């Protein structure tokens, strides 16, 4: 059961030129104290069929995280265009935002990205070699969310100033299986 839940992901640059940086404002709930930082990553998937061309655009640590509603702005550079197979540049790709705690990923949010030229003429007759400056990308608003059950702090971490009896350590078994998404509907 997750201590951190995303409330909202807001796009701060969408649509945008293909080579512009990605900017998101992420708002999340934290319902119990955390000892460590959260790690957030942004990945670019140009070819859904294979991992080979996946790119990690950026990652950052977020902390300290107080109990409550928190928000931060996450930005990441555009993908390295030389690493995208030329045939996969135009059309649909994906951008994936992941969050981890203690190196365990607990949520993965995917967005479709559509890439095309910024004018009708080039859209209809794409030039042979890619003109990067004229490309625009647009992320689909609808997120696809997958949540994973992970081991948070050993369950003794919340301070219990009022509890007269000491709390023994109560580690929750780490569940490697992803749990119900239920939310990744189309």
């Amino acid at each position, binding site marked *: *059961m*997750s*201590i951190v*839940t*995303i*409330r*909202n992901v*807001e796009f701060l640059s969408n649509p945008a030129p293909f080579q512009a940086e990605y900017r998101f404002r992420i*708002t999340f*709930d934290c*319902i119990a104290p955390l000892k460590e*930082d959260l*790690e957030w990553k942004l*990945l670019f*998937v140009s070819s*859904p069929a294979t991992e080979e061309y*996946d790119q990690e655009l950026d990652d*950052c*640590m*977020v*902390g*300290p*995280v*107080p*109990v*409550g*509603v*928190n*928000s*931060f*702005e996450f930005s990441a550079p555009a993908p390295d265009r030389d690493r995208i197979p030329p045939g996969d540049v135009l059309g649909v790709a994906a951008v*994936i935002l992941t969050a981890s705690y203690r190196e365990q990923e607990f949520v*993965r*949010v*995917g967005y*479709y990205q559509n890439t095309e030229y910024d004018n009708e003429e080039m859209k209809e007759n794409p030039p042979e070699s890619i003109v990067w400056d004229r490309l625009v990308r647009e992320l689909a608003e609808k*997120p*696809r*969310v*997958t949540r994973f*059950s992970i081991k948070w702090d050993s*369950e*003794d971490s*919340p301070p219990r*100033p*009022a509890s*007269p*009896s000491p*709390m023994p350590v*109560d580690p*929750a078994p780490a569940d490697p299986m*992803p*749990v*119900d*998404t*239920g*939310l*990744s*509907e*189309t």
Partner: protein
Amino acid sequence: MRFTKPSWVSHKGRTPMHARAPIAAALLTPSPDANQKRVSIFSIHVHPDGSRLATGGLDAKVRIWSTLPILRSEAEDSPKSLCTLGMHSGPVLTVRWSHSGKWLASGSDDTIIMIWDLDPTGGGKVWGSDETNIEGWKALRRLPGHESDVTDLAWSPGDRYLASVGLDSRVIVWCGYSLNLLRRLDLHQGFVKGVCWDPVGQFLATQSDDKSVKIWRTDDWGVEATITKPFEDSPGSTFFRRLSWSPDGAHITASNAMNNNGYVFVAAVISRQTWASDISLVGHENTVEVAAYNPHIFLRRPKDPITTSNICSVVALGSDDLTVSVWQTKSARPLIVAKDVFERAILDLGWSFDGLTLYACSSDGTIGVFDFDQEEMEGIAPRSAQVEYLKMFNFTPAPMPTPLLERVSQARTPPPSPPHFSSSTPVSLAAPPTYPPQSVTVAKNGKRRIKPLFISHLSYGPLPSASAAPSAAPPLFGSISMFAPNEDHHHAELDMTVPITALNGGGDDRKAEKRKAEEDEAGSSWPGRPTKARTLGGDRVRESVNQVKELRSRVSAVGFPPAPNHPSTAIAIDIPSIKSYLCSALEEKDGDLFEARNPEVGEDPTEVMFISAKQTQFLDYLPAAAILLTCTSVFCAVAMEDASIIVYSLNGRRIMPTLMLDAPSAYLEGSKHFLMTITSSARVYVWNIKSQKAAFPSVHLDPFIRAPSSILSAQIRPNGAPLILLSSGVAYSFDPALSTWVRISEARWSEGSDAWEGKHRTNKNSSSRGVISTLESALSDLNMDSDSAANVIKYRWWNAALTLGHLETKLHAAKVLDSPTEYRAALLSYAKKIAEEGFKGKAEELLKDLCGPLYWKPSKDEQVWCPTVLGLQKRDLLKEVSSIFAKSKTLAKLGQGWQDTLRKAALDEF
């Protein structure tokens, strides 16, 4: 009776994960098809106001439904699913609303208990899904503590505690206010699968696969009884063993019991006090999983008065034989038996607060609703009858320990953060708020580290306060409140009346108004509604309390600045912050409430109102903002910012002139006809409202409360004695006879006294917890450093001196605070200790003191010697004390001698 099975109440199967484990998994997850399989519903519970239903299922979700389309066929098209809560990672085995209706607790296979709170602004489309939540229930707290599945939960009367049980064989008691773990009860030897509270508040009952029901005392959490006989042959294969306590407190009905060496499946009815089970409910053809009492008491002969012999109750059973039965205890046969309505075992049952609707859920993934007519529930008594009847037990539950509350509120103090958006600000605003530049540093691993911006806390309404909540039971006939949300079903700080927005026709105000008018009509024709006598403000519709705002922050005592408006007086005690709404509930009478509303802006005057029987009994406009309120069965009092106090009778007459103090009040407490206030300048005033006199001239508390010592709690006893607990670990009272402050108790005694109750918690007097005993446990809680006792250098006579000193202090304290039971208990412990140590001199003095002049005759010499103490006959106490001595090794002769003397004296008197 009407039976319905709303097919739309369902939990659907988990989405299968076809994980292309690598990176694009999130995108490749196939869309789940709409015809997912129905999965088991493990638990069902209806909100105290009858409007919402919570269910927990195998799909790891908690779902909240509107009951309107179930109960009213004409409302079929109104919204059904109000909220889906998907934060558990395992099946949800139990869902329970608090009695106040403010919180929902859920327990899961994932070992976690979640507390959910309603965020009034939190509804709407759920980020990352296609679901739209009409109501924004949000996770408030996550309670880890169990090591395995949490199978059952129960809120105690008044929500003082939350109890949870699980497959780790554990029973855990949580504080119902702070939600901190209070006690772990580890005596069951097998999975624990059911829990319920005594409606009186004295006991907790749990049922386990170790084939026992255990009864735990709530005053020291010791085991009162272990009942095994009915369960000797009970199978261990059931999902649950949910049990229930009858509303009159007299019986527990336990599930999964067996008669005839395991050939007959029954529910066992266990009697209070004897804890014997002579009655069984026989008829089910397989194991009974769950028992649930109707929350109302029933009268065998409805016209006769409410006496023990005239009371019966109604209990529902759900079984693995797919059948639900409902029994009235005055009859040997069930009232109804519902067969063939479920295809698999019945796993949970829940009654609505009005006692007319029974909800059942089954492992076949469906729920069933039994809606009874008032006539079918023959003899059903109003909730007030139960409250009245339970007073017979004369049990006072342990009050909320004040230090705990203090710490909790401190722990929740927000960390400073520049732009503070209140939780009412929706996060996803159309026009995004401007954010300050975020602070970016470099993390240990070399990555950049962003400090998140703190936006708001997770609590969406006011926390239930210790003083208000115990009487904050749900409203009578709560089910109508959903049809008339602005009627008068309100109580202490609880906003149960958050209307289900969608019921108002999606914002079509005219439509909503029309509906409201119809509902008012329906409401006023409700049977049994008393005709209203005219009162000042009685016809006004009480506005709901949406959010309590802090108008002016508390005035702190730090540095002793002069008080506002009173420059000459230094502030020694913090003046509480001025809130837009405050209230005080009358403990003796359910739903009676004294409340004040301070204007947020402008010139509006402050209003005070007393509400009884859901009607405004009186209202008044005040010249200054209200800081504190209190009310008792005799009077209501309000302390104002301008350092004055107004005292009203319950009918709104000012029964005292406006009292002017030297500084604004920091505490205001009432008990019976005594009123106490402590001003910010640390002056203590106590008045007897009945005799219209001060109990003693106002006195200063100053010497005791210089920093760092502060007041943790202040209360007044029914005899007018103040009781003030300081953070230095000392409790004081004022003795008017001695014209001085006296020490009632102090944490120091815990460092050596055997009789210290806070530490040992082996209070032999289990029936009720006295004021001193409660105080001692508060002091123990305060003294967090548990090693301190061990670190004390033991001097030779340390233990004996401290024990005797402690007990002698306790005897004086019991006298000052008027607690005869504790006086007697302390006296007997004292006698035992003296006997143990063999202090003959002390023993003789004590005996003489209790005996008085040997040939004393009543009516003579009363000036010299008083034959009673706190209403107890000293000679009766003498008998007990001398018999303790007589049985001891060292003082046997002395004790026997006095026993003889007493016998002779008794003969002489005849």
